[in-house]
């Protein structure tokens, strides 16, 4: 299935939940926040929320700023 991750289309194998996505992308789940189709996915639900073909995922993190 095709998922848009931070604006870039990428191919993933279904089924895939948010936790598995963070593992595949080698992200530290404690250092990111994730939106699925403009809605925040609470970290406690990463293992439950399944991704669908065409989903738009935004992954943010903290960077230096003033």
């Amino acid at each position, binding site marked *: 299935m095709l998922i848009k*991750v*931070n*604006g*870039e289309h*990428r191919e993933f194998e279904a089924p895939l939940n948010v936790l598995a996505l963070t593992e*595949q*992308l*080698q*992200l*530290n789940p404690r*250092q*990111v*926040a994730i*939106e699925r189709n*403009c809605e*925040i996915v*609470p*970290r406690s639900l990463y293992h439950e929320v399944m991704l669908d073909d065409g989903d738009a995922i*935004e*992954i*943010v*993190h*903290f*960077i*230096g*700023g*003033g």
Partner: protein
Amino acid sequence: MDLFVLAGKAYHSRLLVGTGRYRDMEQTKAVVEASGAEIVTVAIRRLNPAFIAGSGIGSNQTPPSGGDNKQSLQDIIDPSDYTYLPNSAGCYTAEEAVRTLRLAREMGNWTLVKLEVIGDKQTLYPDVGETLKAAEILIKEGFKVMAYTTDDLIVAKKLEKLGCAAVMPLASPIGSGLGILNPLNIRLIAENLSIPVLVDAGIGTASDACMAMELGCAGVLLNSALADAQDPVLMASAMKAAVIAGRQAYMAGRMAKRQTAVASSPQMAMIE
């Protein structure tokens, strides 16, 4: 003990620093340590897709400075040692700011945020209408909002009335280093609000930070004054001293200004 109480928590330092635009992570850490700050403001941005593992593009690129996904800010500045103050810098609408700060809360479960809604790309002046709108939404959702705003007493009072944790008027435009352009307004805001008032943006050097504190501000937030100094770590140390000096001078109560001289040494028993 003169503690800085913000959103129910007491701090020793009244200097808050930004973590942006330093040479590298090592300098960021050194600056924060030298400043003595206990609260650091941070930005929220997309992870660069080019540097996410398994990306088709960019696998042979070098990450840009500050955008290195491998070494995160949290690895360098430990959120268990510092209070993170996520900001909505770069947002131009209440909606964008609220979305950004909700993500920040999800990331760290911190509710203290710096609300900043910009109205104009050239001056980076805050859009106070959007700021008020966003503050109202965030406060209803349980956020503790430190609102960046213009040096306008009426707007500051409205932000206080909405329930902001602090109001942060600008000294001068963000990154300008012009210092406090309207000391009267800063003093008026500091005097008339019962929540902490911090000067945020425009501080250029130590005397500016000192003046903000002498005017009665509860604290100072700065970034460019450090990042753009020739020696950011030494400037961080200067800012720390300036904020302490300004606070002590404010607490001590300055002497009244006189139009004539008053000798400090006795005027009698002079040699003849």
